[in-house]
């Protein structure tokens, strides 16, 4: 057959079909004439799919059979599966591969072999490669439920009963958690450069920053919220703690080389790191950005700020509770740094020689100068006074103490015990602030080489045990002299709940106070076991979360819904709940449509804030919103959370007592302001809360900038009820409040049952499905019982029936998905419904976390509310002496009353 080839534009090949026409039947001729050319490429392409589908089909005919089972009968041989040579040669490869696949896996090595130390270690190394392990991982994995979070495998909760036990430990004894997943970032350079760089990612308005005088000497740890480069108040990254290296006055090099450690949660570690790198560009681009900055400041351009990650170089163990002092006092015994030989006749030259001989003894060199040894004496003195205290909350908040301690493994008691108070004498002496001078926090831990030496020179457990075994009196203390490791340790105090009555009156002051123990990497297990042997109870993430909740404090990253890490945490939790919900049959799970929860698995704070802001602004002609802070629809990069301390304090005092605020204004404001205001307020007794607020600078700022912000509140139930995550915080109606005034034991209003528009559809479909199923079953029965004669008809009937029913089943399955109880698009049924008005009481915020508070014996929680809605709440309850809200759980119709305060 001849074909005429033409090459057109591109590389598409066209084949003329004109010659074929005479051979075709006359009837088809007409149709084919229209197609003059066939594009070969597309022709083959479309056929290729079909051909592939056909071959697939042919291959799989006969279901799950091996290659030789598909052979025609006359080609089959006995024992083909046993001997491959009996299979036709062309099938050898296929059969070989099949046999390989079906072969049972090799026998697992015996447990005895697997548990050999070297094999076990290699197995651990293999498992560690996928996900990060803490140093205490194996200890935890034997006793805890482990979860994968933030790139680590972390302990969630112990396998024994623990929440209440851990509460008791925190309240009266000692609880401990390994928080080494929070890792440090080191920033090194001159202090001015560091501060000018960091000022881009912090804001002075939200509280003290890295430049705070309180923390600059290194005596205290600081707390600061990071934002993306120059984007405050948007782009929150998360809250970090930081520590400046103590300034040494004696040394010459101290002033130009400052060292800053930023302790960062792993969920936003990489984000913080990249933002920090933006602040301190590397040397190539230095003259570009950094030069300009310094030019403005008038500082000569010589900045070399280095940002390095200290991941896995430091270990942090967190101790909670009053007993942590006694536990620490038992474990942390200050080491003697005077070499054993030099106490005798050996002179200074001998000392220097021994240092050279043994680099492992870093402390000989470090403590060779009088200054450092003086520092250590000072530290030991402070520590010896601190450990006499009954609670960590007695020492100055966030204070930092460095000590160099002995190897805790040497001091390990033979059995686990519960330490009694080490102070059996009198009340401990005063702890004046002068005691905590910069020397007290100067530590060799800041030195990389020291950290490495301490890690590498650690005596192996085996050797130590051998030496212990050689002791003449079993159980007596081992005396290793200079061979014993000296470990530099930093102790950082956490103050816990403050005792001021305005914040959390009913909880115990000093709850959740404790120490963070920072030790060099490689030493975690030594200290961990030592703490456990002294009676510290170990908790996981869940226990830590409950401590945070009872302390009414915010925890990273979930309580930062304006940060990327926080939002992903919330969404992950919601997704988890959703899958759990969908696993259950409809009759065994709450019908959220009926409960009036339109978006049970979505975080809708952004929409809520928008609606409330619009609503409040409508009523307020004077307020012009600052565009920088307003959430605009097209640029939807999350919500803003109010974190300016002044405004939070103002809002808190307004919420605490709306009527007093309206009458007398702010009593805690500075006096000259107050005088002016008191006069004005007298006239304005009948005015509204907005006009009263706008009298203050802070109030005006709040109205102008943060009306469309979220604010974290902690709330306590008035009577009954335990709030949970996703719950609604609602505005009570006037009737509710009046009923409560009349009846003190009034439990709260009840939401009316909502209508589920998809219900009738689902019901009809279910009926249909049941009918089909019954029919199918009946068909099977008749098939089984039918005679050979009737088989043909029933067979043809059943195949048609199967096709039809399959189709129906598919359709119904899809449609039921659409008409599930959870409605994704409620506007179809009722246009009016939105986030705000989905329930009978307008929603002002969402519960972030909640649980039963063991300290109060009541439910309590943390929620995020719209600022505009909170002001509306105060406006509504301006005649009352406390502001109340309603809280409703996602799976209940019952509203409960709760009192609010701002969480700071």
């Amino acid at each position, binding site marked *: 057959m001849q074909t005429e080839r033409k090459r057109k534009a591109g590389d598409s090949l066209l084949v003329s079909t004109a010659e074929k026409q005479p051979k075709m039947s006359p009837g088809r001729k007409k149709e084919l004439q229209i197609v003059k050319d066939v594009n070969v490429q597309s022709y083959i392409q479309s056929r290729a799919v079909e051909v592939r589908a056909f071959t697939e089909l042919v291959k799989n005919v006969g279901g799950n059979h091996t290659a030789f089972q598909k052979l025609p009968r006359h080609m089959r041989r006995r024992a083909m599966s046993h001997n491959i040579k009996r299979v036709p040669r062309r099938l050898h490869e296929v059969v070989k591969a099949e046999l390989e696949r079906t072969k049972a896996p090799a026998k697992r090595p015996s447990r005895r072999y697997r548990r050999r130390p070297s094999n076990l270690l290699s197995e651990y190394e293999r498992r560690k490669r996928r996900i990060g392990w803490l140093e205490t991982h194996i200890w935890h994995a034997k006793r805890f439920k482990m979860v994968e979070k933030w790139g680590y495998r972390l302990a969630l909760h112990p396998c024994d009963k623990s929440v209440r036990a851990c509460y008791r430990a925190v309240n009266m004894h000692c609880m401990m958690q390994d928080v080494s997943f929070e890792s440090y970032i080191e920033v090194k350079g001159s202090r001015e450069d560091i501060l000018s760089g960091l000022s881009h990612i912090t804001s002075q308005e939200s509280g003290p920053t890295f430049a*705070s005088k309180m923390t600059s000497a290194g005596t205290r740890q600081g707390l600061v919220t990071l934002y993306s480069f120059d984007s405050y108040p948007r782009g929150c990254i998360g809250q970090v703690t930081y520590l400046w290296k103590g300034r040494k006055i004696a040394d010459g090099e101290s002033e130009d080389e400052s060292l800053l450690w930023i302790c960062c949660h792993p969920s936003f570690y990489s984000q913080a790191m990249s933002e920090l790198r933006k602040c301190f560009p590397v040397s190539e681009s230095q003259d570009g950005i950094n030069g300009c900055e310094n030019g403005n400041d008038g500082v000569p351009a010589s900045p070399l700020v280095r940002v390095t990650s200290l991941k896995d170089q430091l270990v942090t163990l967190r101790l909670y509770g009053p007993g942590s002092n006694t536990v620490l006092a038992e474990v942390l015994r200050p080491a003697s740094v005077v070499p054993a030989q030099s106490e005798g006749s050996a002179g200074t030259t001998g000392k220097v020689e021994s240092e050279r001989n043994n680099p492992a003894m870093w402390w000989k060199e470090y403590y060779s100068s009088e200054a450092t040894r003086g520092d250590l004496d000072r530290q030991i003195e402070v520590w010896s006074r601190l450990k006499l205290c*009954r*609670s960590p909350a007695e020492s100055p*908040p966030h204070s930092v103490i460095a000590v160099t301690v002995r190897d805790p493994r040497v001091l390990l008691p033979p059995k686990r015990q519960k330490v009694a108070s080490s102070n059996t004498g009198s*009340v401990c002496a*005063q702890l004046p602030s002068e005691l905590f001078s910069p020397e007290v926090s100067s530590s060799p831990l800041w030195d990389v080489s020291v950290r490495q030496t301490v890690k590498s020179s650690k005596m192996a457990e085996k050797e130590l045990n051998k030496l212990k075994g050689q002791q003449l009196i079993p159980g007596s203390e081992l005396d290793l002299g200079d061979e014993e490791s000296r470990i530099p340790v930093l102790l950082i105090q956490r103050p816990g709940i403050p*005792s001021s009555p305005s914040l959390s009156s009913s909880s115990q002051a000093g709850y959740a106070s404790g120490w963070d123990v920072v030790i060099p990497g490689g030493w975690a297990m030594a200290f961990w076991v030592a703490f456990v042997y002294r009676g510290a109870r170990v908790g996981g993430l869940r226990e830590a979360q409950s401590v945070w909740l009872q302390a009414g404090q915010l925890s990273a990253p979930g309580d930062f819904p304006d940060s990327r890490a926080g939002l992903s945490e919330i969404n992950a939790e919601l997704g988890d709940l959703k899958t759990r919900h969908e696993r259950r049959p409809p009759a065994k799970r709450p019908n959220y449509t009926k409960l009036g929860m339109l978006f049970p698995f979505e975080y809708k704070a952004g929409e809520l804030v928008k609606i409330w802001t619009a609503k409040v602004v409508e009523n307020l002609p004077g307020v012009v919103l600052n565009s920088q802070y307003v959430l605009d629809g097209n640029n939807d990069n999350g919500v803003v959370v109010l974190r300016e301390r002044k405004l939070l304090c103002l809002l808190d005092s307004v919420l605490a007592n709306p009527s007093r605020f309206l009458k007398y204004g702010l009593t805690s404001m500075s006096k000259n302001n107050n005088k002016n205001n008191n006069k004005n307020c007298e006239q304005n007794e009948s005015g509204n809360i907005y006009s009263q607020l706008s009298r203050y600078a802070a109030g005006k700022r709040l109205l102008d900038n943060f009306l469309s912000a979220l604010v974290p509140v902690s709330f306590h139930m008035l009577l009954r009820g335990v709030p949970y995550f996703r719950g609604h915080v609602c505005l009570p109606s006037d009737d509710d409040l009046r009923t409560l005034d009349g009846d003190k034991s009034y439990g709260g209003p009840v939401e009316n049952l909502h209508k589920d528009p998809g219900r009738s559809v689902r019901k009809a479909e279910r009926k249909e499905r049941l009918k089909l199923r019954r029919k199918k079953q009946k068909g099977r029965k008749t098939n089984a019982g039918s005679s050979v004669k009737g088989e043909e008809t029933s067979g043809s009937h059943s195949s048609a029936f199967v096709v039809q029913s399959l189709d129906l089943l598919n359709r119904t399955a899809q449609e039921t998905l659409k008409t599930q109880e959870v409605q994704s698009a409620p506007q179809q049924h009722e246009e009016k419904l939105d986030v705000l008005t989905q329930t009978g009481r307008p929603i002002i915020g969402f519960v972030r976390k909640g649980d039963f508070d063991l300290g109060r014996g009541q439910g309590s929680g943390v929620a995020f509310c719209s600022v505009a809605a909170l002001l509306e709440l105060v406006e509504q309850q301006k005649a009352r002496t406390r502001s109340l809200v309603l809280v409703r759980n996602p799976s209940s119709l019952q509203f409960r009353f709760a009192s609010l305060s701002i969480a700071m």
Partner: protein
Amino acid sequence: MQADTSIDEEEYTLRKRLPPRFPLRFNDVYVSEKTNFKAQEAKCQKLLDQGNEVIIHGLGKAVNRAINLALQLKNKGVGTVKLCVQTSTVDLTDDLIPETDGGEAKSSTRSNSAIHIRVYREMEDTDQKRSEAQAAQMSSGKS
């Protein structure tokens, strides 16, 4: 709080440290304003019955409560219980945490009164106790 007059309230937050405490023996009871009085009384009575000695500590506002508690125990003891009272002064520290970058952390000390009441039973001479109890009843009857 005497030193506070010069401190701007806007710039600082006051944070009270926990008051120093004696070491907690099993029979030390620290009375607070928040604890239920009945529960405290029951606890003290139990300890008294166990070891014949309880030491009740009260600080500041809780001094009244501590005295009340001790007297209740004495009343219930019908003359068998004796009190030994000591007062003291406790130095308390308040921290002033700056709200701005410029502020230094400060601390101020103040004093508060405390009371320590040893509530005990003497078990040596029962006859003497009986006579004492009678005397106490007599005296209470007279008054």
